[in-house]
């Protein structure tokens, strides 16, 4: 069902929601007991390893695995020939990415895999597999890949949206917007036109991909893995391997970070294929180098912006052309970038054009608000530069143009109640905005927008005979969602937090749950949890009515107990949840509530970030001095973990802005596949990050909840670029703003 008939009366008097209880998985995680992807073992288990292409682009003429197969201890070798020749269209690229077909399309592309009785034997076996490669010309840069004479990855080329005459590496084109750009620019007092570039970055979860597969000749299979969605893994692997979904049971381990990168499969189908062939369980764990070379980073981008503004700060027109490379297969998030680029603003004339381009790099996977940070970097930088040129306050300019309820969004629809203005007002009123700055220091602000999702959700709430409650849900808990679900169930049932335990089930125990992505879990699973609790309450009221011999309608649930209500209910002492549960066998059997929904209709989310930086003019080094995040959470269920999402997104954005990048050599080989040279922020790089939670209730959720997980990575790139540009006295238009790049910009400005 859709949610148009849902209870949208937003609850205000919370007892549990909004407090900060300890998380239910906490003890396991501080004692080392929690079991993550690589922590599971099985009797008779083999070790699986992948052979990867050393070439960025090569035809695979043949693969001879006979020597590897003959090595004592090797139990199975698989290549693409061990997978079905035909798979459903929607998983064809996923399969090709997990195991190359005719061509290896990037450095690190899987070409074969072995299962052996030890890691040492598996390693040795990989060296015995003979692959006859025919190296082909390669391209890793998005603009170079669009050139007419660029090496072509896929002969078939792009879809019907790509105009004639483009490189076959252009897979699709999108365009959004309304109004007349030229007319709008003509009304402007000043127009700027700038080009921006961002490097590809990786989600950088600390836990490498890992799984343990066990498949039998009867078609039944079990898989344990770290993933953002066990149902996605089940359905994708079943489609790739020709298994039935019901025969494959997938259990999600504790997950050591995902950020979008674990919303697809890499090792899982390979492990299942190896296990099926070897007849033994197979465990596979990626090395960090494999994670960086072959799991999904996000796109690198090249974006042109034209923006017109009047002297008093009104944006008269905004145009952006976005080119994202999504690695070796179509599907970069350029469409999302094109929709979100100008979404924070109420513009009469706005247009974005997006190009999805393939290159010889690993297939891009989702990364926290996929596509939006790069677009916001370009647009928010241009707004900042124009504001400064016109001598205007950058927060005032944003407030003057801010989207609000009734604004026709740049991507089409009309906004309902949204929180952007509230974040801007809060930013302007915050002491950070008026704090003094020293020499070589600069302050930057930027706004960000992200969609939130709902999606397929199925939860079950079971009342135990002693009156405690187990909530079963099907979404891996990345950042504390079990705590939030427990809180919402306790709130709704009117019982203490510690009387509820939330567990995450395997695919066999609940209906389909969409992936933990799109900031959907607290919103959608929370909504289903509330509805499941309400169903259980209705049942408990019915049981109480039977006991009291009165109409069901004459019983209400208040403060954790059924109570008679209304003129004909009579006098009965309230019956608590525990009392009703204890006699459930006498009144009709076990008490449970469940809820299944495709929870569509989620709201959108906005944030404003403010950052102070200091630039060392002699070395180009940038220091983050102070950072404040202002974001609308709708309703913060567990404020600690809402703050954690704000802080974590800002930190990832700081890495993206300053030092993280995929560096390819001229040979098309990734030069920095490790945490030594893929430089994520370390503790000493960062200051405290102050989270300011605003609560503008989402009318589409009974408690007013909005998703909060992704929006926090959208503004930092631009906010930091604006701050560094102010501190260095020169506009930075390319990320990362690594010291050599900042120093070169300072020297360029000095020379000019």
């Amino acid at each position: 069902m859709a949610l148009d008939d849902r209870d949208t009366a937003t609850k205000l008097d919370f007892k549990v929601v909004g407090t900060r209880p300890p998380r239910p998985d906490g003890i396991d995680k501080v004692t080392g007991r929690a079991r993550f992807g690589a922590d599971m073992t099985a009797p008779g288990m083999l070790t699986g390893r992948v052979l990867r292409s050393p070439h960025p682009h090569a035809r695979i003429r043949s693969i001879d695995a006979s020597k590897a197969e003959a090595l004592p201890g090797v139990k199975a070798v698989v290549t693409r020939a061990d997978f079905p020749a035909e798979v459903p269209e929607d998983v064809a690229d996923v399969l090709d990415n997990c195991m190359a077909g005719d061509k290896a399309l990037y450095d690190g592309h899987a070409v074969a895999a072995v299962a052996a009785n030890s890691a040492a034997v598996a390693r040795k076996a990989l060296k015995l597999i003979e692959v006859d490669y025919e190296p082909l010309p390669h391209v890793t840069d998005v603009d170079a890949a669009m050139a007419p004479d660029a090496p072509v990855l896929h002969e078939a080329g792009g879809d019907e949206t790509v105009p004639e005459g483009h490189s076959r590496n252009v897979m699709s084109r999108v365009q959004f917007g309304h109004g007349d750009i030229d007319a709008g620019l003509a009304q402007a007092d000043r127009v700027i036109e700038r080009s921006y570039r961002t490097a590809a970055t990786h989600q950088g979860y600390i836990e490498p991909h890992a799984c343990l597969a066990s498949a039998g000749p009867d078609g039944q299979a079990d898989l344990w893995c770290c993933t953002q969605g066990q149902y996605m893994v089940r359905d994708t692997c079943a489609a790739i391997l020709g298994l039935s979904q019901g025969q494959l049971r997938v259990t999600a381990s504790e997950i050591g970070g995902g950020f979008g990168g674990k919303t697809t499969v890499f090792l899982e189908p390979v492990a299942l294929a190896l296990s099926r062939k070897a007849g033994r369980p197979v465990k596979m764990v990626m090395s960090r180098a494999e994670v960086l070379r072959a799991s999904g980073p996000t796109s690198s981008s090249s974006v042109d912006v034209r923006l017109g503004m009047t002297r008093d700060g009104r944006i008269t027109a905004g145009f952006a052309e976005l080119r994202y490379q999504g690695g070796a297969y179509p599907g970069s998030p350029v469409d999302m970038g094109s929709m979100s680029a100008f979404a924070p603003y109420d513009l009469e004339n706005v247009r974005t054009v997006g190009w999805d381009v393939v290159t010889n790099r690993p297939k891009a996977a989702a990364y926290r608000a996929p596509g939006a940070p790069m677009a916001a970097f370009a647009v928010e930088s241009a707004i900042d530069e124009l504001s400064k040129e016109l001598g205007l306050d950058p927060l005032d300019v944003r407030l003057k143009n801010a989207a609000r309820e009734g604004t026709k969004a740049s991507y089409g629809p009309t906004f309902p109640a949204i929180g952007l203005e509230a974040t801007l007002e809060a930013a302007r009123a915050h002491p950070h905005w008026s704090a003094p700055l020293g020499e070589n220091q600069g302050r930057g602000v930027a706004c960000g927008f992200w969609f939130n999702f709902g999606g397929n959700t199925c939860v079950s709430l079971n009342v135990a005979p002693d009156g405690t409650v187990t909530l079963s849900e099907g979404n891996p808990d990345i950042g504390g969602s079990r705590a939030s679900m427990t809180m919402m169930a306790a709130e709704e049932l009117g019982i203490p937090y510690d009387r509820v335990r939330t567990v995450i089930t395997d695919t066999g125990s609940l209906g389909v749950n969409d992936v933990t992505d799109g900031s959907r879990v607290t919103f959608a699973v929370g909504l289903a949890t509330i509805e499941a609790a309400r169903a259980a309450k209705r049942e408990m009221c019915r049981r109480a009515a039977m006991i009291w011999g009165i109409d069901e309608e004459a019983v209400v649930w208040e403060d954790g107990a059924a109570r008679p209500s209304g003129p004909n209910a009579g006098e009965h002492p309230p019956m608590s949840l525990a009392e009703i549960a204890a006699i459930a066998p006498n009144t009709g059997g076990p008490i449970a509530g469940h809820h299944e929904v495709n929870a569509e209709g989620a709201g959108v989310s906005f944030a404003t970030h403010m950052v102070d930086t200091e630039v060392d003019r002699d070395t180009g080094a940038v220091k983050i001095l102070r950072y404040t995040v202002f974001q609308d959470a709708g309703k913060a269920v567990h404020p600690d973990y809402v703050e954690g999402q704000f802080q974590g997104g800002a930190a990832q954005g700081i890495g993206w802005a300053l030092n993280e990048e995929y560096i390819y050599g001229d040979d098309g080989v990734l030069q920095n596949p490790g945490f030594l040279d893929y430089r994520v922020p370390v503790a000493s790089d960062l200051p405290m990050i102050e989270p300011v939670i605003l609560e503008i209730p989402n009318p589409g959720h009974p408690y007013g909840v909005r998703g909060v997980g992704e929006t926090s990575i959208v503004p930092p790139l631009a906010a930091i670029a604006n701050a560094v540009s102010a501190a260095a006295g020169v506009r930075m238009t390319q990320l990362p703003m690594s010291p050599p790049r900042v120093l070169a910009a300072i020297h360029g400005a000095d020379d000019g």
Partner: protein
Amino acid sequence: MSQIHVTTTINGDATEFLCEPEETLLDVLRDRLGLTGSKEGCGTGDCGACSVTVDGRLVCSCLMLGAEAQGARVETIEGMADGDDLHPLQQTFLDHAGLQCGICTPGILVAAKSLLERNPAPSEEEVRYWLAGNLCRCTGYDKIVRAVMAAADDMRRAS
């Protein structure tokens, strides 16, 4: 292939194991002894998720051979709580939401314990630099640093 026989002490328990020469201490802990609390995030000493102490010294167990543990005293996350009594750091990480996904948490707790044993009153900057070898991708380190400082306070008050 000849395996090496190693006698060592792990979390106070006398322990013997056989290992291949190339196996790291982390491999031994995880795959031979079932102590999977120490995590492998990189295998190259860049993330700190495998942090343990050896003879009181904080190290990455991925950068040490299992054979080198001969005669040593190894402490891992599994030995941090005393029965059901959590170490003050474990408690403050729960109280201050010092973890999100939790994969870096064991390494950070072991590293932070080693810091507080040397420096009972570290400044924020000292905490940040001491923990610079422990990557966390979820939290932005804010609540981690607060949790360590809070544990230091609690431990000073208790002593």
